[in-house]
């Protein structure tokens, strides 16, 4: 025989004997004279608890216990009818308990059925009141059909049976299910004292109300509320049990507010009182438990959130430091690269100059020309390096504004004097037009304006085989000034203008094949202008020429 099966059989017999004994005790003591109706049928609670803990496999024990408990139906004078009625009641009892547990587990909370308000309602409405209709109906009908009760009393018996069974479940099930785990022992002496005092208070009120007969049952309520809030479900179930015990005691002994001439009236009042106390206390404790759970969850969420915020902040800090250090090393790299490129270029250009200038003796014209080519290419390389490093510096976000006040005409005259060297041997005239609108003095970032103009004029020279380059300087609005570089060069198509400021883009018309450059010049120009808070506009017509207009904010001096 398998141990589990043996266990089941032992469990069933143990339950059967408990059920039978409590059934007999209920019938002996929990009875309200003169009708001897059972106010609270404890076995229905025991059956519910057993099935809740051990499952439906202990349902036969309920049946057996009920059958044994009702032995007065067929013993000592055995009749087949009595035997049959006892069988029917036994079957009803096991069905009732099983249904109650099934409903609670199906619609309530599986593990902790008394910790949620919803589950409490399921327990009282479905597990207690609805399930107990089963045996109230089967049992009372069997008694009437078997001739053990007059048909006229069928309704009364049914009602008493129903409410008695329900009360048994309602009082015993929470008590056992909750107290299956003992409360955590408390080190708080005050809490223990509170517990002792409140239970003494319950007993005092119970004694006065149900022994002394002075109707102060309602005083149970505040004490129970206090117990529920301070001691949770353990306190609640124990308190309810105590209150119910007093109420039954009083009813049985004919004391207290619930004693009426009609036994059914007494029963109804008693059960209504116990039910109300039960319902109130359990709902309150479940609501409190829910609140505690929610508070705890909220605290946990807050904690997690706080932790995450701290982690994120640290991540951001790290990312920021990394970015700053990357930016620093990038800037350092740019400066170092610049230095490393320029040092050998100094030798190349320097020696070219020395030879070309005849410092080391005269050269043939052919030699002088070729030295010139070396120098040109070295200069071009220098231009590429400068452009590339400029872009790198712009992209590293390392541009700084260095503004100064300049005399407008003086600044541009000097600047354009220098720019004339860009023309080289081309047949190009550079003209300067100052509009009346330009202030005499302006606040500008001179090195950047210089770089922009050198780029734009250099560009114009590059694309103008011969003709005129006109530089206009003026102010169209009170808070804006401009300079425009107009050439009579090869011009561009609308399509080319669109991609003009893209990095590394060089306009690949057939006519521009021979023109040199990184394609970075205009991109740098645009970035510099934007850095200064301005805009660049281009108008161009193929064959006729282009105009680049730079608009910049006019800053107060």
């Amino acid at each position, binding site marked *: 025989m398998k141990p589990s099966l043996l266990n089941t059989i032992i469990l069933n017999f143990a339950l059967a004997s408990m059920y039978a004994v409590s059934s007999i005790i209920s019938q002996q003591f929990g009875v309200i004279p003169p009708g001897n109706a059972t106010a609270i049928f404890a076995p229905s609670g025991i059956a519910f608890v057993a099935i809740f803990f051990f499952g439906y496999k202990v349902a036969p024990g309920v049946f057996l216990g009920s059958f044994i408990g009702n032995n007065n139906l067929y013993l000592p004078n055995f009749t087949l009818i009595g035997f049959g009625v006892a069988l029917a009641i036994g079957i009803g009892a096991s069905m009732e308990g099983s249904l109650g547990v099934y409903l609670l587990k199906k619609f309530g909370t599986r593990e902790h059925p008394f910790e949620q308000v919803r589950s409490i309602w399921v327990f009282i409405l479905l597990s207690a009141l609805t399930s107990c209709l089963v045996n109230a109906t089967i049992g009372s009908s069997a008694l009437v059909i078997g001739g053990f009760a007059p048909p006229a009393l069928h309704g009364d018996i049914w009602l008493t049976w129903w409410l008695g069974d329900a009360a048994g479940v309602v009082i015993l099930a929470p008590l056992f299910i909750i107290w299956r785990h003992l409360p955590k022992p408390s080190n708080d002496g005050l809490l223990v004292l509170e517990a002792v005092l409140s239970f003494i208070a319950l007993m005092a009120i119970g004694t006065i109300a149900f022994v002394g007969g002075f109707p102060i049952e309602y005083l149970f309520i505040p004490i129970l509320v206090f117990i529920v809030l301070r001691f949770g479900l353990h306190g609640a179930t124990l308190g309810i049990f105590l209150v119910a015990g007093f109420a039954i005691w009083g009813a049985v002994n004919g004391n207290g507010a619930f004693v009426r001439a009609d036994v059914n009236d007494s029963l109804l009042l008693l059960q209504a009182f116990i039910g109300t106390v039960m319902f109130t206390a359990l709902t309150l404790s479940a609501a409190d438990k829910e609140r505690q759970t929610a508070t705890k969850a909220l605290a946990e969420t807050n904690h997690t959130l706080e932790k995450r915020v701290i982690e994120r902040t640290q991540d951001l800090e790290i990312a920021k430091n990394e970015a700053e250090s990357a930016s620093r090393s990038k800037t350092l790299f740019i400066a170092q690269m610049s230095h490393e490129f320029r040092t050998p270029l100094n030798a190349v250009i320097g020696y070219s100059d*020395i030879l070309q*200038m005849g*410092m080391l003796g005269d050269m043939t014209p052919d030699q002088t020309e070729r030295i010139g080519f070396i120098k040109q290419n070295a200069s071009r390389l*220098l231009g590429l390096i400068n452009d590339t490093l400029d872009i790198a510096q712009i992209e590293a976000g390392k541009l700084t504004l260095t503004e100064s006040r300049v005399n407008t005409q003086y600044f541009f005259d000097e600047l354009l004097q220098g720019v004339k060297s860009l023309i080289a041997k081309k047949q190009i005239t550079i003209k300067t037009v100052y509009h009346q609108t330009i202030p005499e003095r302006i606040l500008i970032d001179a090195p950047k304006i210089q770089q922009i103009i050198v780029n734009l004029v250099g560009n114009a020279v590059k694309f103008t085989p011969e003709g005129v380059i006109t530089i206009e300087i003026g102010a169209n609005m009170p808070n804006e000034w401009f300079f425009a570089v107009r050439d009579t060069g090869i011009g561009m198509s609308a399509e080319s203008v669109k991609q003009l400021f893209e990095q590394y883009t060089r306009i690949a018309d057939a006519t521009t094949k021979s023109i040199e450059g990184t394609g970075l010049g205009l991109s740098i120009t645009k970035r510099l202008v934007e850095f200064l808070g301005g805009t660049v506009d281009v108008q161009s017509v193929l064959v006729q020429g282009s105009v680049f207009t730079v608009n910049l904010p006019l800053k107060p001096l």
Partner: protein
Amino acid sequence: MEKLQALVVDDNWYNCDIFRIALEKAGYEVEIAYNGRDGLAFLETKPYKILVIDLQMPGLNGIEVLTEIKDSPIRKKMYILVVTANAYMATEDLEDLSDMVMFKPVNIADLTFFLERVKRIVL
């Protein structure tokens, strides 16, 4: 007439060579130091009309050399030309320490023009 004395301090041999040629062509007598420490030692030996000095050098760098002589009497009688390949050098930092800054690659025509002019300046 006694030749004007010039000192070139640069760790790059080619650059020293180029400056030497340009200086000699302009009529200077040139001495070369390939590091800052040697440069300082040379400066102690005799009065120079012009010092051409690089900034980025191993050991004692240009700024350190110039800072060292900043308040000495040598400085007062000497014209200082800083030549640097560091295009991102902020020139205002050098205002107190030197008389002229040129960025490499140096245009020899510009350099020659400058050297001729220095010859005529009496400090």
